[in-house]
């Protein structure tokens, strides 16, 4: 296949940045999207040109590093799929593809398609844990947990922290991410005890780090590569209300 790519090029957070048009003349349908970009970079490097910077690591949809908006949609719009798992067979010969970084005030561009997602780490650091010390914990079976609860918690734990939910949201809200973390722990007996402090601290950290509020667009769920459900935002709100009134 032959494709025409319009790729966002930006040299650091203070550069204005622009779209650059680059041809990808020889794309195989079995290639992944990132492998297609590898080929683009190989050609650029041989010409002595600056290669397109993009984050990636596991290339199998678990680390959450890959962060590209493809044709306006974070991760490219295939349901429950990260950019690294997107394959070129989803495109056709002659297609033009727009490739941009996550765009959100809370995610400054480092270079080209690479953004700084430290804001999400700050939310985690504010309370995305149980305050147990290492060593000397109770037997895991001493706390029986019903299967439906364990499954619900696991659904929330699917989140890989990629930030697509923020990138797709008109308000740059991180509430799907935060909701997933809050819900995962709030329903488990080992996490329940700190639920109130956790939800307050994480919500506060989201505000402080430039993330907005949810106004029910549900773009986050649509672009989430792990199918994290917006019901966790409702859970976040409920937990928040509970913490407010107690």
């Amino acid at each position: 296949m032959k494709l025409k790519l319009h790729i966002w090029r930006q040299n650091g957070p203070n550069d204005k940045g622009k779209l650059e048009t680059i041809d990808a003349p020889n794309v195989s349908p079995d290639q992944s999207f990132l492998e297609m970009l590898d080929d683009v970079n190989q050609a650029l490097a041989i010409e002595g040109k600056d290669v397109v910077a993009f984050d990636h690591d596991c290339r199998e949809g678990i680390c959450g590093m890959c962060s590209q908006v493809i044709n306006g949609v974070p991760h490219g719009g295939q349901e429950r799929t990260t950019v690294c798992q997107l394959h070129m067979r989803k495109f056709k010969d002659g297609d033009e593809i727009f490739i941009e970084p996550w765009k959100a005030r809370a995610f400054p561009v480092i270079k080209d398609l690479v953004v700084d997602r430290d804001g999400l780490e700050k939310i985690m650091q504010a309370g995305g844990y149980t305050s147990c010390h290492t060593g000397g914990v109770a037997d895991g079976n001493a706390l029986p947990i019903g299967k439906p609860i364990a499954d619900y918690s696991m659904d929330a734990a699917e989140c890989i922290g990629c930030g697509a939910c923020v990138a797709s949201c008109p308000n740059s809200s991180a509430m799907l991410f935060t909701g997933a973390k809050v819900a995962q722990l709030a329903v488990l007996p080992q996490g329940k005890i700190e639920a109130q402090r956790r939800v307050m601290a994480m919500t506060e950290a989201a505000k402080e780090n430039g993330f907005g509020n949810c106004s029910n667009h549900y773009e986050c769920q649509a672009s989430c590569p792990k199918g994290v459900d917006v019901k966790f935002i409702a859970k976040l709100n409920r937990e928040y209300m509970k913490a407010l009134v107690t």
Partner: protein
Amino acid sequence: MSNNIIDQCVAQGVPFARDYAGYLDNRSFGGAQVSRTFYARGQTGQQLLLGAYSALSRQVKAGTVKLFERREMLDLVVVDGVARGITCRNMVTGEIESHWGDAVILATGGYVNVFYLSTNAMGCSVTAAWKAARKGAYMANPCYTQIHPTCIPQHGDQQSKLTLMSESLRNDGRCWVPKKAEDCEKPAGDISEDDRDYFLERKYPSFGNLAPRDIASRAAKEQCDDERGVGPGKRGVYLDFADSINRLSEDTIRERYGNLFEMYEKITDENAYKQPMRIYPAPHYSMGGLWVDYNCMSNVPGLFVLGEANFSVHGANRLGASALMQGLADGYFVIPYTIAGYLAGVKPGEVKDDHEAFKQSADDVKADIDKLLSINGTKTPSEFHRELGKIMWEKVGMARSDESLKEALKLIPALRDEFWKNVKVVGTNEQFNQELENAGRLADFFEFAEILTKDALNREESCGGHFRTEHQTDDGEAMRNDEDFCYVAAWEFKGAGVEPELHKEPLKFDNVKLAVRSYK
């Protein structure tokens, strides 16, 4: 220990699967005949990692840990034989930074990306371990590499990495290939039951499809070498769920492995509920690594090495689910005690980053970077990496021989020399530069690859992940030589192209007798 670890993870909020009574559920895994592995959907490893990440986040908030993100460790600073700190490159700005400490801990992962294609993340490299080796730390048993049987086969030359399908699939999937080579092109459904060779069940009746990784991998390779492989390039075998779906229902299989089937479909465009998956072995884990003692300290005092980066625990072969167990044990339960013992004997802050050795180290790192950037040849780091990987996979991969290893020992230095004359690294140091990062990592892989190969040549026996074709039984099983090789091979690097020195640490078994385990 493993139960403590599970308890720890439960306390962190890792959502392990529970049965209807609320107790932790478990299932069996490769190399084990009983159900004893706890799991969290098809992503146990990922969930344990997220648990550790959340515990780390708590420490960051508490101010006990300071994170330096996007830094790459490019040298170990050793003063009078003692590890005193590291030199890093800030991967955003290119700045070279010195960090001092009363002890240094490396938890920098494994090295199987030396094969180029592997299941490891793209960022995995031997660099941190190798920089330590260059400063005197011994590299132990580097030839012990694990080739994992259940990976998605390669699609073509543009492939950048291979995807692992969790081993748990082998609980309910049956491995087979056509009995007749002429059937290989046919759709799987057109091949009758009688014409299928369930090779693992045939060869290992008691373990069957749950035979350990090295054995399952080699068996798959044998079938493909015998021209009975399936899929592109005929490097693949079937993993068939039809029987389990009939026995348990598609829904049960979906509940157990839904996300894996989905991932498989994304990559191959095939629906594994309707037709068998295709799998092929791929490099996955390094049992070898930096030598450490029982305290996880290397032979360089003050340098501790944890997790996959060290050589401990697994010997020549690692069984399913034990890597994370080791990593978490090292980090949660070993190092807190052993490092305290070490720190009790050192004067805090005795050597800081104003010491001459830090400046020297930073200058060396800068000189290496300048050298890489100045060559301006005609081949990119990724081209060189593919070439190195091909040599390693073909000559030092699943089956190694005296001949193939000696060939590799000619090819690797030749390619390394070409690299240092002809690599093209675009961009500058003072920017976010992934080409430069890759070139640096590759330079280390080149030196390391030679030691891995030498270790494989030295070890005149077959054991675990190391299979020498000269040393096998009549029916193709690994043959150990306990008489001569019952030792850890710890290599001391003496410079590129210089013969490394072998230190042998004898393996003593007081309470068990060495025996050959049969999986038949």
